[in-house]
């Protein structure tokens, strides 16, 4: 029933393109729901979170993405109240969280290990928080039942956690963290312990639940694919800093640094020096690429500065005949092919020795026209597909 409703509303939107309100983070006068202001966290001499400022808006599904030790978990734990900032402050729904203990915060957390109480059954695990609120038995039972039905575990209330599969444990943990109707839900690697197939299914379920309940989610993950599918916006973290905050599309297509470009998806990075610096374009001489690179967006750089051009593998076209233009055209030899079903990955060695990754979708079943090993090919791309990175 839900699915059909969803379908009808979406088709309705196609029929009459209504004026869709821009998301809150694009409205300059919107009030952020969570405000992280110049927060620094030091453990002895180690700076885990370094002067981070971040606004998260109501009903967002915000992903903090980073490798291990990037400070993403510490930031999440500060939101939960398990750690206190060394300096700076955190406001949730306009209230300064300084000195407010975890048990008094309007926040719940889903732990990476799920942290289900092993001595309590599923229903008692989910009901734990409600009982602390002093809710009467009847209401606890009703709300636990509703929650378990939502995560499709209504029949397993009497089981102990160790009798559940990984996916079921994950659902119990989710139900337990949502049952108190928190204003803000923190999720620490929510899908990390699930296998690939289950993870994909659960991702969409998580998004649906988030949209149905209208709770603001902050998700910590090291898995860029997970972040891309889940998030309304992604904050990429590295060494305690948020290096870029943008929508998934923005982070992928317009990375602002070499780190972000390489961290999210795979990318080819070409080194070169700026030879022509215009207001709305740059020309870069790249011995590595064996050609001049033209990028139609302005950058701020010194003349002759060494810069990097990022180019995604799927944006590159391969051809046997030389394209018309001389710029943005590289020549090389196919040294490796990986057939992956829906697409094939090619590794091409340029004359400079630089290896370039190209992916091509396998449109047809026919193998006849395919590129093969040791073939010499030309690589070209649309000028708008590449990004210059100065850092």
């Amino acid at each position, binding site marked *: 029933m839900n699915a059909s409703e969803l379908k009808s509303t979406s088709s309705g939107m196609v029929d009459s393109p209504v004026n869709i309100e821009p998301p809150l983070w694009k409205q300059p006068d919107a009030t952020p729901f969570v405000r992280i202001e110049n927060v620094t966290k030091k453990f002895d001499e180690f700076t885990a979170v370094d002067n981070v400022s971040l606004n998260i808006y109501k009903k967002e599904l915000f992903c903090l993405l980073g490798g291990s030790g990037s400070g993403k978990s510490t930031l999440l734990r500060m939101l*939960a109240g398990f750690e206190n900032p060394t300096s700076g402050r955190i406001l949730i729904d306009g209230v300064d969280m300084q000195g407010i203990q*975890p048990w008094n915060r309007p926040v719940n957390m889903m*732990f*990476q290990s799920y942290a289900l109480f092993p*001595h309590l059954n599923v229903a008692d695990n989910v009901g*734990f928080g409600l009982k*602390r609120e002093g809710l009467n038995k009847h209401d606890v039972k009703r709300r636990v039942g509703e929650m378990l039905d939502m995560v499709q575990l209504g029949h397993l209330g009497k089981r102990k956690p160790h009798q559940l599969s990984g996916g079921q444990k994950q659902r119990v943990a989710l139900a337990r963290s949502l049952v*108190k109707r928190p204003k803000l839900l923190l999720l620490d690697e929510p899908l990390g312990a699930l296998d690939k197939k289950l993870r994909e299914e659960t991702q969409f379920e998580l998004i649906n639940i988030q949209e149905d309940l209208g709770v603001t989610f902050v998700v910590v993950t090291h898995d860029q694919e997970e972040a891309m599918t889940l998030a309304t916006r992604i904050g990429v973290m590295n060494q305690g800093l948020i290096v870029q905050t943008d929508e998934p599309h923005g982070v992928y297509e317009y990375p602002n640094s070499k780190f972000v470009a390489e961290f999210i998806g795979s990318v080819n990075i070409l080194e070169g020096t700026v030879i022509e610096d215009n207001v709305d374009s740059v020309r870069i001489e790249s011995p590595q690429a064996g050609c001049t690179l033209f990028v139609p967006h302005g950058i701020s750089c010194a003349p002759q500065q060494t810069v990097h051009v990022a180019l995604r593998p799927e944006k590159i076209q391969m051809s046997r005949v030389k394209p018309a233009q001389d710029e943005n055209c590289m020549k090389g030899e196919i040294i490796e092919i990986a057939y992956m079903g829906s697409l094939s990955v090619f590794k091409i060695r340029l004359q400079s020795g630089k290896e370039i990754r190209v992916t091509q979708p396998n449109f047809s079943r026919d193998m006849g026209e395919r590129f093969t090993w040791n073939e010499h090919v030309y690589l070209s791309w649309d000028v708008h597909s590449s990004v210059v990175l100065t850092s």
Partner: protein
Amino acid sequence: MSSLSGNVWLTGFLTWKARFKFLQNINWGRFSVISVPYLWLAIFFFIPFLVVFKISLSESAIAVPPYSNLLDFNLEEAYVNIKLNLGNYLYLWEDSFYLDAYLSSIKIAAISTVFTLLVGFPIAYLIARSDEKHRGILLALVILPFWTSFLLRVYAWVGLLKKQGLVNEVLMSFGMIDEPLTMLQTDFAVYIGIVYTYLPFMILPLYSALEKMDLSLIEAAEDLGARPIQSFFMVTVPLALPGIIAGCMLVFIPAVGEYVIPALLGGSDTLMIGRVLWDEFSLNRDWPMASAVATVMLVFLVLPIMLIRSKTEKEEGAA
């Protein structure tokens, strides 16, 4: 007809053979390893217990050993006389002295166990939550007293608790008391002795239960609105329960039969079954009575342990 009975014989033989098939299925290597502790227990525990039980059914006699035989052979008149004397058990029941001794032992052991738990839990908790590199040293400190003889450690308390002992002198020098307190030869001294000597047996199982605990469970409880005191009683204590039970058993059981501590620290009115047993054995030279006391004590202690065991096993089986 004959072929039918032949069939019956054959099936009979086959089932008989099948019945002994398990002999072929035994892993003899494994069996020989496992049998060592069983053999040990059989020789040094079960058989001696049977001997004690046998003596408890005999009568005290002036002889060597000082009890009567259960079996009386007389080949000439061709009779075997088995004489089981239940009088000792009857006497245990009739003379309230013994029941009082049992109850008093259990009371003293139970109170001491509770105090050992109250003292041991914070220590075990502290060690389990301390920095990993300090835990080894802290645990070693818990075990350190074992380097000294148990008897010496109990004697040391005599020196501390007596009228002119260290505790009284310190208290008097600070002016907290005017005249020395009588601490030695009281139940109080017995409690102190038991708590002190059995503390490591409480701390170690508690530590192992607390150390295993996933600390994110505490955070989860606090995140769901439980204050630290609530999360302690609703998460930490239930998860430490196996350690609490094990520790209490390890303290309670030997404390019930304790002899040295009440003998050295207790007063003449400190009634404990271990002392009664010793008095029967050495002063009265009534081996059968002493054996009956020992047998009943064992039953008293083993039954509740077996009940707890079967209960936990049932829970584990259901889990």
